[in-house]
């Protein structure tokens, strides 16, 4: 399976993502934001970081970058596009995903392990995944997901909510919500569920010496779905 990771100026999880993808058997290539086109890929990843410094709104300038048109075309043709952290913010700015990511409720950057509940398995990212609750890692200042009532209803009706923050046992409430996101939302799909944006970083959880190993399950599962 071939993947491409887009590097924007200010991306800083690009290498981590490259390491993770290769570890599980993806043939990964790095693509510079000023490139005209993306090499043939089965998966495009927008990594975490602070694209263009995030000085305007997080992800906003990246959503106008040269490469982004190819990403949008790829998504619209049904290709898998995964945005992690800043990548999720960029995807909302492009309009591929609904809603916005506001500053965390308690106004602080949060770097911490969290549990997330997988809400939908009828998609190429989570199909066949045995676990329902994954331990992942967040590191962000603007991860407080918000959308309009209509958008929320539509996300719920179409099962577009991908993962929600929860406790170890799957409980979703205010205490298990680290950043104030509406309905504890940690990640969402587009309507066709080929585009996934989420705040947690699976690429930081890929061996037992790191914060945990549940990120491995996520990547292995995407590969399994392509076999």
């Amino acid at each position, binding site marked *: 399976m071939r993947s491409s990771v887009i590097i924007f100026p*200010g991306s800083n999880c690009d290498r981590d993502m490259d390491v993770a993808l290769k570890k599980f058997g993806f043939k990964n290539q790095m693509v510079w934001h000023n490139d005209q086109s993306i090499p043939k890929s089965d998966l495009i990843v927008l990594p975490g970081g602070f694209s263009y410094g995030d000085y305007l709104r997080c992800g906003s300038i990246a959503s106008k970058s040269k490469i982004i048109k190819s990403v949008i075309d790829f998504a619209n043709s049904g290709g898998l596009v995964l945005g992690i952290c800043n990548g999720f913010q960029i995807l909302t700015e492009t309009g591929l995903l609904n809603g916005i990511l506001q500053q965390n409720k308690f106004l602080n950057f949060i770097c911490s392990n969290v549990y997330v509940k997988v809400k939908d398995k009828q998609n190429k990212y989570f199909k066949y995944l045995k676990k329902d609750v994954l331990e992942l890692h967040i590191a962000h200042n603007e991860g407080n997901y918000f959308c309009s009532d209509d958008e929320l209803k539509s996300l719920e009706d179409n099962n577009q909510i991908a993962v929600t923050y929860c406790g170890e046992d799957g409980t979703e409430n205010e205490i298990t919500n680290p950043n104030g996101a509406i309905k504890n939302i940690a990640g969402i799909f587009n309507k066709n569920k080929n585009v996934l944006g989420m705040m947690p970083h699976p690429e930081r959880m890929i061996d037992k010496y790191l914060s945990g190993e549940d990120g491995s399950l996520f990547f292995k599962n995407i590969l399994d779905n392509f076999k």
Partner: protein
Amino acid sequence: MEVTEAVAIDHGLKKEEFSKICELLKRTPNLTELAIFSAMWNEHCSYKSSRKHLKKMHTKGKQVIQGPGENAGVIDIGDDDAIVFKIESHNHPSFIEPYQGAATGVGGIMRDVFTMGARPIANLNSIHFGSPQHKKTRNLLRGVVKGIGGYGNCIGVPTIAGQTTFDESYNGNILVNAMTIGLVNKNKIFYSKAAGLDKPVIYVGSKTGRDGIHGASMASATFDDKIEEKKPTVQVGDPFTEKLLLEACLELMADNSIIAIQDMGAAGLTSSSVEMASKGNLGIELNLSEVPCREEKMTPYEIMLSESQERMLIVLEKGKEKHAKKIFDKWNLDFAVIGKTTNSKKIELIFDNKKVAEIPIDLLAENAPIYDRPWKKTKLPQKLKFDKDEFKSLKLSDCLKKILSNSNISDKKWIWDQYDHTVMGDTIQKPGGDAGVVRVHGTNKAIAASVDSSALYCFSHPLTGGKQIVCEAYRNLISVGAKPIAITNCLNFGNPEKEKNMGEFVECVEGITEASKYLDFPVVSGNVSFYNETKDKGIKPTPTIGGVGLISDYQQMLTMDFKTEGNLVYVIGKTDGHLDQSIFARELLNEKKGPPPTVNLFNEKNIGETVLDLSRKNLIVSCHDVSLGGILTAVSKMCIKGKKGITINSLKGLTNKYEYFFGEDQARYIIEIPKASLKIVNEILDKYSVHFDELGTVNEQSIEYKNDINLPIEELADAHKYWLKKYMDS
């Protein structure tokens, strides 16, 4: 403006220094030249009060590739890998403007490391604030933490460890010390020494603005009531540009275009150009009209003194300009050829086609004043005679809870949750342990690092205090299974023109030197910050030691959390019960006098090597050094982290339980031993002739000691974990 003595004094120069300048130049300098002298001759850049004493430091060792004197120190860690690291202060700016002060402190130290060709792989910091009751403390802490996080998180370098303390002596002068560790191929290290004539001098990075002018002079003076007026001397950080600069520099460094490179830190273009020329024994000519400026009509004076961040000066091989420019264009950074190296041995500045300054380099560097300041020895205070009857009214469990929630002992999660400590995917020990640990990417090796200072001990007796912090750093590294290899230090002191402060400096340096020599733990980089003083009130002497160690197989790393019920717990090293200067004495007896615990370097080394041997043989499963708060505090932290308890034995021949449990004697560790390893552990302890106590056995969930203590771990954890969060929310 005509340059007079009064103008020179306004620039922070002393009367005698100004006459010396006129004498050396054989004329009166013009304003730009005066500014250059003031920037190079101030304490911050010239080390004029400290140099004499720093020379004595132990800086050599088998693994040392580069000691003090470069942008950072370099250590060989085998297989062509080398580690570049340094700690630096940003105290004065952080007190004036905490967010930007701390942020640019982090930015500055990272530039020092990647200037040498290394990719930063870990950040650490040591931050010190006034009393929690002081009205400024909360906001300063919030601002500093946000600043450190704001910069480090954006660049994408994990912040893996740190230290935070509170003491009223920092009420008017907080300390912000930032440390960066980088990884480099040892055959591709870049230095600041210029070489060759007529080589192009290149300016890259951000544009030059009017921020930070006189920053280095500000850092070389004490504070008074008018500090608000000094806000414009604080630089403004742009971590995004620094990230681009980092990537662009490393890209250019992949080939052989660069002869020398130096970041523009304190005193900006002035000190970077002078240092490169001075080290290469060359001259340098700069055309200031070519310097990319952010603001209009900047004068040569402003351009030379600006401390705008995220800028580098490079001496390039001739003919490589186009190639280099292409890389900086790709990263959207300014690139300008602003001068060349010459054989004049002078710095010559051109502006608007006119020569605006001309100074022989040696007058700025070698001929800068060096002072042998008078200093006073601190006598070892008399050991206190505690009234042990008074202890009897204190319940051990209450004492423990009080100590665990002390501002200097309590958990600092509120802080490090705001630092990205997992980016780069190699952090295998997060903040909150004895040391942070990151893997050397793609290898089995890992680097452990910690920062420490013990201002109370250093204030009581600087010589002992100096030794103690080096030992503390040594122990922290051993506690995570790392072999200590080298240190960097940040020497924060008050006004060196006062004999007492100067004495504290001299004796702390002496202590550091003695310990680092004995432990073969050389100092490879560092910085000195004097004049941490407001309205005549100085800080307690606070030398900060950043220790770096190597774990050759990261699977052997140790953590402090208790692992398995039934395992045995030993205290390694002898406990005499030294309560003077302890947290117990301070917190429960309100007693602040007495000497710090004695440091026995033989024991430190022998016991350290014993513990390292046990960990290399995989015989112990957790380890923690005993420091502030003594045995009971240390063991409680191991319980809280492991969510386990301990049943403490009735200890034979115990003279006083308070002294035993809370004494702060040095050279001690607590280790957890699986029963199967016990016999061989005992044999090894015997072989090294190391004293040990069989402290107890790991249990499910509470600390138990005879009828004195029976505390569920959850209750202890509450006391320990929430002090800071509650304080910040209140």
